[in-house]
């Protein structure tokens, strides 16, 4: 796949459905947030040692989901292109929930607020969590303010981002545990 170069030099870009829109368009903005989330997840995976390839693969699975979500967000409602796009299935949501349960089973119960940080992988996972929440807010804005019917955009995407934030919080704590770094609790 080759990347397009130059047609957006003047601040206008194409949606996947073909419309030319300013790069400040809410739909482009939402795609950008999802892209940023994927990039931060990439940093998290890269910081993991080769001993944790299973976790890296799990993160790459999420990055793959995010590409599909980005494609959906980059396509106007009503466009025939939407019929070609994959949405997040209920089965995929259950996989994320199962992953949350798997990670949390390895962790002590949470007694207090945590200060994000610790091992570098955990710090990246915390950043990913906050970017994920921002992406979720942008998608919600798109649903509320643009032409996107809530039911359509919520078809998998909003529940997925909501679950993913929880997963990333658990992942951050798990990464600290993996590397023998205790979570730092908030002393108030």
């Amino acid at each position: 796949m080759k990347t397009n170069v130059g047609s957006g030099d003047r601040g206008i870009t194409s949606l996947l459905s073909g419309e030319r829109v300013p790069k400040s368009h809410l739909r482009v903005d939402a795609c950008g947030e999802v892209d940023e989330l994927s990039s931060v997840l990439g940093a998290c995976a890269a910081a993991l040692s080769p001993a944790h390839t299973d976790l890296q693969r799990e993160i790459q699975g999420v990055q793959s989901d995010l590409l599909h979500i980005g494609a959906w967000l980059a396509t106007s409602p009503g466009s025939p292109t939407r019929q070609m796009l994959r949405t997040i299935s209920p089965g995929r949501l259950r996989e994320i929930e199962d992953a949350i349960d798997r990670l949390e089973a390895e962790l002590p119960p949470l007694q207090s607020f945590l200060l994000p940080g610790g091992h570098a992988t955990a710090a990246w996972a915390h950043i990913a969590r906050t970017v994920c929440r921002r992406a979720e807010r942008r998608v919600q804005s798109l649903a509320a303010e643009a032409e996107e019917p809530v039911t359509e955009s919520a078809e998998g995407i909003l529940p997925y981002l909501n679950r993913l934030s929880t997963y990333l919080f658990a992942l951050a704590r798990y990464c600290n545990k993996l590397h023998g770094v205790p979570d730092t609790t908030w002393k108030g």
Partner: protein
Amino acid sequence: MKTGRVIPFTTRLRDRTWLSEKAFQVALDRPGGFRFLSGQSIRIVNGPAERDYSLACAPDSELLMLCVRHVPHGILSTFLAEAPLGTSLTFTGPHGYFLFQNSSRPPVFVATGAGVAPFFSMVGAGVSGFTLLHGARTANELYYEMHLRAASALYVPCLSEGNAAGCFSGRVSDWAAEHLSPRAYDFYLCGSREMIRDVTRLADERFPGSLVHTEIFH
């Protein structure tokens, strides 16, 4: 999980036809269960090398056809140019969203070189009545001209080098700038990065309200 899994298909190189000194068409056996829509591509995998090629055949074609530009020292195009017939190949797909969509705006297809492949596939699926700006360096590089001309409402061969009877001398973007009436269109652009940049810019400036679908050089 519904998203993200890519299933590889295995096929064999059935035939190869040189279309010009710089491009050739290959025919691949169609694996069972492989379906695609006109405008989509497949990704040929050969060891660490992967390249996307648009399918240049109708969705119900018995064989899968690719139009390949032979890139000097290009890993995949050289492999496809030289591999003995019968060679086993792996590909994934279908990929891409470069699909024709009916709308109230007149469709304008713009192709350069081997970028004409998805339009040939669309014609095979019954798409017709479009304007096609077909760009090439020389007349012998206007691949699939006869079929495309027959299905077009307006077929404009544009030669960036040299002249030929019935051909516009200049780039496709030059023709569009000089002759396309001001209104909104559905542009479908497949070819070189430079063409896509130029025509997209033209669409922004001269044809507001247009949709621009792009696919870079497959």
